[in-house]
């Protein structure tokens, strides 16, 4: 799914579902993968910016079925891979099989479930395999090599490397932990690896790709634009993604 890829994240339904489609189409002009956050009442791995995005989306009345419909509509315009990112409860509440099959039928290519570690993922993995849903597990700087191998094994699409100890949010510099983790992952993981958390500038994208990442995820830096411009963010998003993309050819 990824090779020198720019992966862009927004929260579905922020500030409303109609705007989200417009934003996805804007991102699509320069992004290789679109990562769509499923809004959740308690996004405990997210920093302030994405927390507020979750809140705005829920306040606008965004439902899980709206997220599926959003992907379905996007599919009428584009074949760019779409990955859902969210917390486990909304998946569990629908029933894992129902959720995965609906996501697949809507055109979703992969899923990231932030608070579902390997130990709890047996049923989820079996169902994703059955429906051909790509799985993406996260690894952190403190993930040991043996566990990294298991995460590689469980991730059918790619492995998501968290660049630091902390929550999502734009930072000025990429943590040195990110480069150590890429190095460790490159010698252990066979699947492609994407790096996220704290990435906000074209230089970050360039440095991470140069260090061996197959993809780079930018989230909060885009969601900040939506926080500022609301429904009218499409143009600014497009500009930002174009700018980030320049990091791939620097």
């Amino acid at each position, binding site marked *: 799914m990824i090779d020198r890829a720019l992966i862009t994240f927004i929260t579905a339904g922020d500030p409303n579902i109609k705007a989200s489609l417009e934003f996805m189409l804007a991102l699509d002009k320069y992004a290789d993968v679109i990562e769509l956050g499923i809004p959740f009442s308690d996004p*405990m791995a997210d920093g302030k910016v994405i927390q507020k995005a979750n809140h705005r989306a829920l306040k606008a009345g965004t439902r899980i079925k709206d997220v599926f419909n959003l992907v379905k509509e996007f599919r009428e315009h584009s074949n760019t891979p779409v990955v859902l990112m969210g917390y486990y409860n909304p998946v569990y509440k629908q029933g894992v099989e129902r959720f995965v099959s609906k996501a697949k039928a809507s055109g979703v290519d992969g899923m990231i479930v932030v608070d579902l570690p390997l130990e709890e993922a047996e049923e989820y993995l079996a169902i994703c395999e059955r429906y051909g849903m790509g799985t993406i597990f996260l690894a952190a700087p403190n993930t040991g090599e043996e566990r990294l191998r298991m995460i590689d094994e469980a991730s059918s699409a790619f492995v998501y490397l968290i660049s630091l100890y*902390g929550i999502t949010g734009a930072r000025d510099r990429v943590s040195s932990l990110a480069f150590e983790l890429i190095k460790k992952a490159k010698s252990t993981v066979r699947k492609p690896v994407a790096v996220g958390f704290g990435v906000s500038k074209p230089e970050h994208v360039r440095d991470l790709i140069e260090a061996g990442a197959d993809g780079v995820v930018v989230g909060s830096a885009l969601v900040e634009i939506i926080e500022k411009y609301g429904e009218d963010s499409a143009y600014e998003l497009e500009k930002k993604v174009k700018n980030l993309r320049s990091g791939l050819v620097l």
Partner: protein
Amino acid sequence: MKFGEFGGRFVPEVLIPPLEELERAYEEIKKDEEFQRKLAYYLKHYAGRPTPLYFAENLTKKVSGAMIYLKREDLLHSGAHKINNTIGQALLARYMGKSRLIAETGAGQHGVATAIAGALFGMKTEVYMGSEDVERQRMNVFRMELLNAKVHAVESGSRTLKDAINEALRDWVASFEVTHYLIGSVVGPHPYPTIVRDFQSVIGRETKRQIIEMEGCLPDCIVACVGGGSNAIGIFHPFIKDKVKLIGVEAGGEGIEKGRHSASIVAGEKGILHGMLSYFLQDEDGQMLTTHSIAAGLDYPGVGPEHAYLKAIQRAEYVTVNDEHALKAFVELSKTEGILPALESAHALAYAMEIAREMEKDEVVVVNLSGRGDKDLEIVRRELK
């Protein structure tokens, strides 16, 4: 690691190593005589254990039914059972070489108990508290600050306990190398529900010894309030294999039918939050609902996984008492026995009085009086007007 299908470890990957470290350290200190001796020392000489088991004779006469006994956790230093756990976990944190404690708090009782432990053992302490609770419990905020803890008002989500836990977890993923997250109830990812239960089980062990001394038999029934469920598990656990009826009382708020309550076992559904599979109050998309109780310490949309399990295997029974009845019990105990109970504990008391009335005079009901009511005077005064 699990209680039947409940519990587990549903956390972001970065927290797996710190939880494994905590589990290993906890297994070590369980067998460490020096640690256990220290814990017993502080519980006795600092916190004030054992707490009395008191026969509430006046209340028993008034109710005219089974004998009502009160386990007086309200007499502990800090005014509630929370300190049993904070002293234990702070010692554990020190054993692990951590220098900083973080905690969540709802009403402020656990925050105060953590700040006390932090001051006692010379550890930097920071407490997360929903901004709505900061407003409701000003005195406890001041108390924590006097105890040298830093209080962070949490502005996200519903601005209550649930959001304070989210914020503490966010702190922990960035700070676990030097920080211990001191969870205040039998909730959270494994091994927290087990650790907190073990530290709180001192309540039930003492109760067992005391009731045998006083009545020569085990009680017929034990009643405790359940928010996250730490005081309830603490008194239930040593009786689980005995023929004793165990009843957990959840907050019925303004009434279950009105939707404004905190009764996660009685009215919730299975779900996953804060690292555990348990019962939660949530909508059909799995979004957590805002809860309500007159008792801030019960104002949480989930419940500890071991309670979910005890319910599933029908070993314990879970019921609700609403705001109004809890308030009545608060007033009743104050007048008849000269004891002001915490509004949380008043829920258990209200239910115990109700069932004692229907029981025989030689039967025994034990209520876990988990905290004292001083912190609730403002609320009670407003409600009684």
